[in-house]
């Protein structure tokens, strides 16, 4: 293994209060494996993404193999397997929003964040923009998720003022 020499040492997630939260949750399920999705959320909450080191930590906590954890992690699109910008923007472009101009909103986001293309992080590290498949708010086209903030009825014109709220 190489390539991690200059990285900061990995800070474990499941200590103190987070470990207590995990164990409290353990009483609500008959298996420890069932804690996998909640545990990956806790990791992402703490670190912003799920690193290979975090995969090992989760595997150890839950008595699973790292390969198994990675298999599940890679199935669910909301977990980040790579670092992303400080604000991760998901814009819905599925048909109901698409016919209401969602692709124009997407282009405005790419332009005003400086990301340029989908999946890329802006040079200042603030934003990553991704297309999302149906966010389930079709009557409020176009909806976005900016990290955990659910925002409705975004238009290309409202994008600059919206982004200004995320410094």
């Amino acid at each position: 293994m190489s390539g991690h020499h200059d990285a900061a040492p990995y800070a474990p997630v499941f200590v103190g209060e987070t470990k207590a939260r995990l164990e409290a949750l353990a009483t609500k399920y008959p298996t420890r494996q069932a804690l996998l999705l909640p545990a990956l959320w806790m990791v992402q909450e703490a670190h912003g993404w799920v690193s290979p080191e975090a995969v090992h930590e989760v595997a150890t906590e839950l008595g699973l193999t790292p390969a198994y954890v990675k298999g599940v992690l890679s199935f669910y699109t909301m977990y980040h397997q790579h670092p992303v910008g400080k604000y991760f923007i998901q814009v819905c472009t599925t048909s109901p929003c698409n016919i209401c101009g969602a692709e124009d909103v997407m282009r405005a986001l790419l332009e005003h964040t400086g990301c340029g293309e989908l999946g890329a992080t802006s040079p200042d590290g603030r934003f990553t923009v991704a297309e999302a498949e149906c966010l389930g708010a079709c009557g409020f086209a176009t909806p976005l998720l900016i990290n955990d903030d659910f925002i409705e009825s975004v238009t290309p014109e409202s994008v600059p003022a919206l982004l200004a709220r995320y410094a």
Partner: protein
Amino acid sequence: MGYPHPIHPKETPVLSTHFGDAEARSYAGWTARGGYAALKQALGMTPEQIVDEVKASGLRGRGGAGFPTGMKWSFMPKDDGKPHYLCCNADESEPGTFKDREILRWTPHALIEGCAIGCLAIRAETAYIFIRGEYTEAYRILQAAVDEAYAHGALGADVFGSGKRLDVIVHRGAGAYICGEETALMNAIEGKRGNPRIKPPFPAVAGLFGLPTTINNVETLAAVPAIITRGGAWYAGLSLSSPKSTGTKLISVCGHVQRPGVYEITMGLPMQELIFDLCGGMRPGRTLKAVIPGGSSVPIMTPDEVADCPTDYEGIAAKGSLLGSGGMIVMDDSTDMVYQIMRLARFYAHESCAQCTNCREGTSWTVKVLDRILRGEGKPSDLDLLMDLADQMTGKTICVLSDSCATPVVSGIRKFRHEFEAYLSGARTPALAGA
């Protein structure tokens, strides 16, 4: 009510009465509006009595399949000595569908109460509510309501002093449409990839954690408290059309209508009235081109088919489509049907779990063929190829995601063939840049 709009005179608010009323979210606010009376009543009923009342109501699953809820509950084993589970499907992900979100956001206690009564009916002590990861605000509101329900004894080891235990656990998904399929949903709760399971065994025999399980949609469970307090006969009497379609239905209407929103109608309301009266019709100068009435997985309807169609299970089925989830996508004459059908196919290709070959290959090839048609590089044989692909994707896989991808393609080619042919002949400028 037609959230976010005021109640329309042609609506019948039962589930949606308190949409937009933030006070209804709290335990105190909910009980002040008559909440938890149904659970207290149900605690004094036998499981059979609860099931019979729901059978009498004619309530059918509101997630899409429309299976009679009371009958589904009656499939659960009795006296088997095993723990039973209730799963609530709050994974609402079918494009066009955004009705459950308003229940989760505005009346979370209606759902918690429905889960509790559902548990009593199927002899379960635990309900897991699986909510899609993208519903961040709804998740926070629902979790806060569950915490409050425990604090007031509506959930926990001794519900309202009855000696009965009822637990409700909110489990957050992480981005996967397929987890709305009931067996994939159970896998996601168990900490697995969301791959659908082969049936049989059916969930009532071996479901969550291998134990007898019932899965119900949010809207289905939220309808149960009113059925208990007002009676199954009252609910069954709410119908403007077929005796097989009873009660009220939330219809989430989106796309090119003037007032998109979540409308609660009595089953059987003419679709024409829903679109043109309640939703305000098309934008000025525009005409109706197509309606996908029940979420993106159902066949596309033409304006002629919409014109005399009652909005209920049988009425829409008679027109060759389905009520499905009640997620209605309305498209006006500005819509490029070929492009939007490609966009829907892309959705299914992205969301395929990829375990079945026909789905994994079929969805992605459907996108590739539609893509080349839109680039002006389609071949004359491409429409036959798409129909052949669709045939190979229908009824040949573990779940129906593959069928759902084929549906808009088939109905789109049948009903809007001239739009495809315009791209193929070069009469229409390519919508996508060449490769």
